[in-house]
C-alpha cells in the first residue's frame, strides 16, 4: 500500500480540475501494476467526479450546480450571527457545501497493466466549489507493484506520512488485521477491503461526539469492533445463504470452504467482543452483546421463515429489526454511551438507529430489483430471502397469484426473471419506498427532542442517504 497527497491550486470559484494525468503519473511513479487507486477529498467544498472533459459540458455542469444550489440563496450556514466559533476569515460558502453533497468526496479507480482503467471519454476531476484555494487530495494505491519503479520513486516517506493521517477507523481496522493469524486475517481483509459502506462505524463515530467525553482512540476501537462484528456475521450469513459473491468478490465460504468460513466468523466474533470488553465501559459491552444476540436469534427466524416464503409484513419487520436494525441501534447507542451522553439521548439515538436500520434494509431490498445497482438482480428471490417488495407483490390482487404459484415451485432463471418482472410491474416498490421514507422521517423526528451539539444535520443527512440510493 502506498499513500500520499496530491496538492494543487485552483484559480476560479467553480472549477473542474482534470487530475487524470496527475493520477496516471502517480500510478507509474509507484510502479503499480494491478490494483486500486483510492482518492479522497480532504475538503468539504471540493468534490470528485468522473466524466468527459469537454469545455461546453463542463459549463453545463457548472450551470447545473448553480441551479441546484445558487450562490447567496439564504443558507443558514452563512448566518454567522447564529453560528458559534466562526473564524474571522470564514467565507460565505453555504452554496459550496450544498453543492459538494451532490458530488462524491471519494473515488476508487481500477488500475490494470500499470495504468488507470478509464473509458475513452472518461476523465477524473477534482471539482472546486469555493475557490480559488490550495487543495489536497489523499491518495492510496493498493495492489501489486513492480519493485523497480517503486524503488526509484522515492515516495515511501510520503506514504508513511499519509498513512498516519488517514481515517482512524480504517487505520485501526488495518492494524487489527495485521496482528491476526494469516488464515483468519486474509479472508477478512479481502472482505473489508472490498468496500462496504462503513455505516455502522460511522454511526459510532458520530454519536460518540455527542456527550461530554470525547476520546477518538476509544471511539475508533469501538467503531472497528462493530465493523468487524458486522463482517463476521456476513461471513456466516454467506455460508447459510449459499452466496457465492459479496461486494464483487467470492465469499469466504465459496473461496475457502465452509469450515474456514465458520472459523473466520467465530474468530472475529470473539475478537470484536474482546475489543469492546477492553474499552472497559460496561454499558457499551452490554449494548453490543444484546444486539449480537438479537442478530443471531433473527438469523434463525429468517431461515425458519423460508419455509413460508415470501412471508408477511409482520414477520419481515421482526426479522429485520433483529438482523439489520439491532446493530444500527447498538452502534448509535454505544457511541453515545461511550461519550457519557445522557440516558435520554442514548435512547433517542437507539430508536433513531433502529428506524434507520429497518429503512436501510427496505432500501436494500429494493436495490435487488434495480438493474443499475451493479449487483445481480433478484438475488433475494433466487435465495428465498425475506424481501418486502416481494411480500407486497405477493399480496397484490393482480400479480400476487402468479407470484405465489411461481414461488411454490423450483426457481430457475426463467421463473426468477418472471417474478422480478411481476414485482416491478406492481406498486410494491412504490409502497416499500414510501414506507422506508416514513421510517426515515420517524428517525429524524427522534432527533428533534434532544440536544446533539451540532450533529443533527449530519445524522439527518445520513438517514436520508439510507433511502436516497433507491430514489
Amino acid at each position: 500500500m502506498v499513500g500520499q497527497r496530491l496538492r494543487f491550486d485552483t484559480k476560479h470559484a467553480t472549477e473542474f480540475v482534470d487530475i487524470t494525468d496527475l493520477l496516471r503519473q502517480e500510478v507509474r511513479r509507484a510502479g503499480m501494476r494491478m490494483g486500486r487507486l483510492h482518492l479522497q477529498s480532504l475538503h468539504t467544498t471540493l468534490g470528485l467526479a468522473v466524466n468527459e472533459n469537454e469545455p461546453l459540458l463542463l459549463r453545463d455542469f457548472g450551470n447545473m450546480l448553480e441551479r441546484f444550489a445558487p450562490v447567496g440563496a439564504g443558507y443558514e450556514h452563512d448566518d454567522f450571527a447564529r453560528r458559534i466559533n466562526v473564524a474571522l476569515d470564514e467565507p460565505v460558502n453555504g452554496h459550496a457545501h450544498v453543492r459538494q453533497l451532490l458530488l462524491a468526496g471519494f473515488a476508487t479507480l481500477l488500475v490494470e497493466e500499470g495504468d488507470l482503467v478509464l473509458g475513452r471519454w472518461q476523465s477524473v476531476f477534482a471539482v472546486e466549489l469555493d475557490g480559488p484555494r490550495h487543495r489536497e487530495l489523499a491518495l492510496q494505491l493498493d495492489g501489486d507493484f513492480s519493485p523497480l519503479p517503486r524503488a526509484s520513486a522515492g515516495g515511501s516517506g510520503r506514504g508513511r506520512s499519509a498513512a498516519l493521517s488517514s481515517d482512524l477507523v480504517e487505520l485501526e481496522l488495518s492494524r487489527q488485521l495485521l496482528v491476526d493469524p494469516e488464515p483468519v486475517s486474509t479472508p477478512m481483509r479481502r472482505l473489508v477491503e472490498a468496500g462496504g459502506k462503513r455505516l455502522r462505524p460511522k454511526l459510532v463515530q458520530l454519536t460518540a461526539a455527542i456527550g461530554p467525553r470525547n476520546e477518538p482512540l476509544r471511539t475508533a476501537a469501538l467503531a472497528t469492533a462493530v465493523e468487524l462484528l458486522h463482517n463476521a456475521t456476513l461471513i456466516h450469513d454467506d455460508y447459510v445463504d449459499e452466496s457465492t459473491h459479496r461486494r464483487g468478490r467470492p465469499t469466504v465460504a465459496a473461496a475457502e470452504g465452509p469450515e474456514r468460513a465458520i472459523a473466520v466468523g467465530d474468530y472475529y466474533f470473539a475478537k470484536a467482543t474482546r475489543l469492546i470488553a477492553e474499552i472497559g465501559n460496561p454499558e457499551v459491552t452490554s449494548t453490543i452483546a444484546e444486539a449480537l444476540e438479537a442478530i443471531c436469534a433473527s438469523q434463525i427466524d429468517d431461515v425458519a421463515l423460508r419455509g413460508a416464503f415470501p412471508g408477511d409484513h409482520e414477520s419481515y419487520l421482526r426479522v429485520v429489526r433483529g438482523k439489520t436494525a439491532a446493530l444500527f441501534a447498538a452502534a448509535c447507542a454505544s457511541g453515545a454511551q461511550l461519550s457519557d451522553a445522557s440516558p435520554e439521548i442514548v435512547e433517542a439515538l437507539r430508536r433513531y438507529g433502529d428506524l434507520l436500520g429497518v429503512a436501510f434494509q427496505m432500501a436494500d431490498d429494493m436495490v435487488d430489483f434495480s438493474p443499475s445497482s451493479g449487483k445481480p438482480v433478484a438475488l433475494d428471490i433466487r435465495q428465498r430471502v425475506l424481501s418486502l417488495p416481494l411480500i407486497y407483490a405477493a399480496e397484490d390482487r393482480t400479480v400476487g397469484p402468479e407470484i405465489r404459484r411461481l414461488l411454490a415451485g423450483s426457481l430457475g432463471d426463467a421463473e426468477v426473471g418472471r417474478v422480478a418482472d411481476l414485482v416491478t410491474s406492481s406498486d410494491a416498490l412504490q409502497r416499500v419506498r414510501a414506507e422506508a421514507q416514513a421510517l426515515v422521517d420517524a428517525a429524524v423526528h427522534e432527533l428533534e427532542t434532544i440536544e446533539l451539539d451540532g450533529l443533527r444535520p449530519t445524522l439527518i443527512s445520513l438517514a436520508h442517504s439510507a433511502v436516497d440510493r433507491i430514489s
Partner: protein
Amino acid sequence: MSVQLLDRELDRLESLWEDGLSEAYRSYLDAVGAQAPATRPRLALAAALVEVAIRLQGLGGRAASPPTLLMGDLCLARSSRILAGAATQAVQIAFALAIEEMSAAAASGVAAPATRDLLLRALEAT
C-alpha cells in the same frame, strides 16, 4: 441459579439442555467456586454455552449445517451477553481469547487445546 432465571437464559436453546449443555453446565459450576456466589451459575452457563457452540458448529472438524451453525452462533451470543452482565472485564477478555485461539487453530488446520481446559482457565482470569 433459579429455575426461572435459567429458563430465561435458555430461551430458544432448551433442546440443547439434554444434549450436553446440562452436563457441561454442572462441570463448570463445580469449577467456579472461587467466584462470587451470585455470579457462579451465570458464569458456568456462559462457559457451557461456548463449549456447546464450538461442538455444534463443528469448529476444527466438519462444518455444521446452516441451521446448526446458527444455533451455535446464538449460543456464543447468549454467552457473550451473560458475561457482559456477570463477569469481570478480565474474564470477558479471557473468554474471547479462548474462542480466538480455538478458531484460529481451526482455520490453520492445527489441533486446538481442549475447549474445556481453555474455558476453565478463562474463568480464573484476573
